[in-house]
């Protein structure tokens, strides 16, 4: 069943986007196909793998379980919004230095979920990190290096005194 197209105005990584879309379009597809922001990946499309995670009004959200029309008027951050100019942010740099990615398909989701986690939990222990990582699936690197990267990023951020 098709329905009338709806206007969606949304701010993504500080930039305003306005697109006319069918109400059935998922946010993940909206970001990729309408906004050209292909850093957000779609893995399972039912909320299990976490590859599509974005930050919606400050909280991590599965973009495969959200419709684009639901974010009208809201603010989003996707993986494209993490780097500071041409330099990786602390979490991205820690992933790079600790070999926390291999094929990289799952990485944007991990980064977005962990961005929220490190803001809420600036000094996490390994159990807390692993609990948080349970919401994102990686099928090639494994989790040991990702845990190390989170620890390194948390330490760096604490030393920098940044949020």
């Amino acid at each position, binding site marked *: 069943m098709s329905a009338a197209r709806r206007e969606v105005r949304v701010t993504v990584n500080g930039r305003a986007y306005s697109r006319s879309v069918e109400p059935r379009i998922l946010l993940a597809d909206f970001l990729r196909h309408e906004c050209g922001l292909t850093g957000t990946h779609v893995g399972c499309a*039912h909320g299990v793998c976490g590859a599509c995670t974005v930050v919606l009004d400050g909280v991590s959200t599965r973009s495969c379980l959200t419709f684009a029309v639901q974010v009208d008027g809201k603010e989003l951050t996707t993986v494209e919004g993490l780097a500071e100019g041409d330099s990786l942010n602390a979490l991205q740099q820690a992933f790079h230095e600790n070999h926390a990615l291999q094929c990289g398909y799952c990485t944007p989701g991990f980064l977005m979920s962990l961005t929220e986690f490190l803001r809420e939990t600036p000094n996490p222990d390994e159990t807390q990190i*692993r609990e948080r990582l349970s919401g994102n699936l990686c099928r090639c690197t494994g989790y040991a290096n990702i845990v190390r990267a989170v620890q390194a990023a948390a330490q760096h951020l604490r030393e920098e005194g940044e949020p």
Partner: protein
Amino acid sequence: MAKHGIDARPLAGGQSLVPLINMRMARPAVLIDLNRCAELTYLREADSVLACGPMTRQRELELSPTVHQHCPLIAGAMPHMGHATIRNRGTAGGSLSHADPSAELPGVAMAMDAELIAEGPNGRRSIPVAEFFFAELTTALEPDEILREIRFPKANASTAAVFAEVGNHFGGLAIVGVAAQVELDAEGRCTKVALAATGAGERPTRLTSAEAILLGEVLEERTTIEAAEAAAADVDPLEDLHASAHWRRRAAVAMTAQALRQIAAGVHN
């Protein structure tokens, strides 16, 4: 909803319904998004209950000091309920209305004897939780009704609560869970016992035989084992891809024992 009847579905957090839509297992013609109804999101403390708006996010239940203080069983169950990102969007009312047999909150509501308020074109009505869950994904809500409020009775200072669960990995798909809420007197005797299992039948189930054994008793290992074994007869599990009926029955016994041991050891919410 009055106009579209069973073709319409209310959309709460979308963490269960949207996967079903994406997999084409649910094909509602009309989705009615409740996410912009601010008046459906609240936690209000009354004399004997904590009233919860249906659109209250699970993450808020997890982090709320009021919930920790007055409804320790909810606080204990929340970390099991999907992952943090899922709980950011998933709602209290959505989980109860969706009525997945393995979901945690329906079991919690059963153990707490929650009262559910439905609202439709004919006004509001109260549904005791024991009469709310009919079968898998089927509740007492009419097609033109939504769950309008959940009233969780407040625990008192002597209440110990544990949610014990076995699943395929932490935060992943739940297989069997047991919600336990026990009041102990100064001598450690159980003066009030509520146990409910999830994932061990087509709806959440009170473990009444186990409760009867524990009432008035001290939580010693012998009593714990006797009560947990009695729980096997209280459940009527179905077999599916994830576990056989026998496995689920034994898991209900094991989770009952685990919850009771944690309460006996003082490791509880």
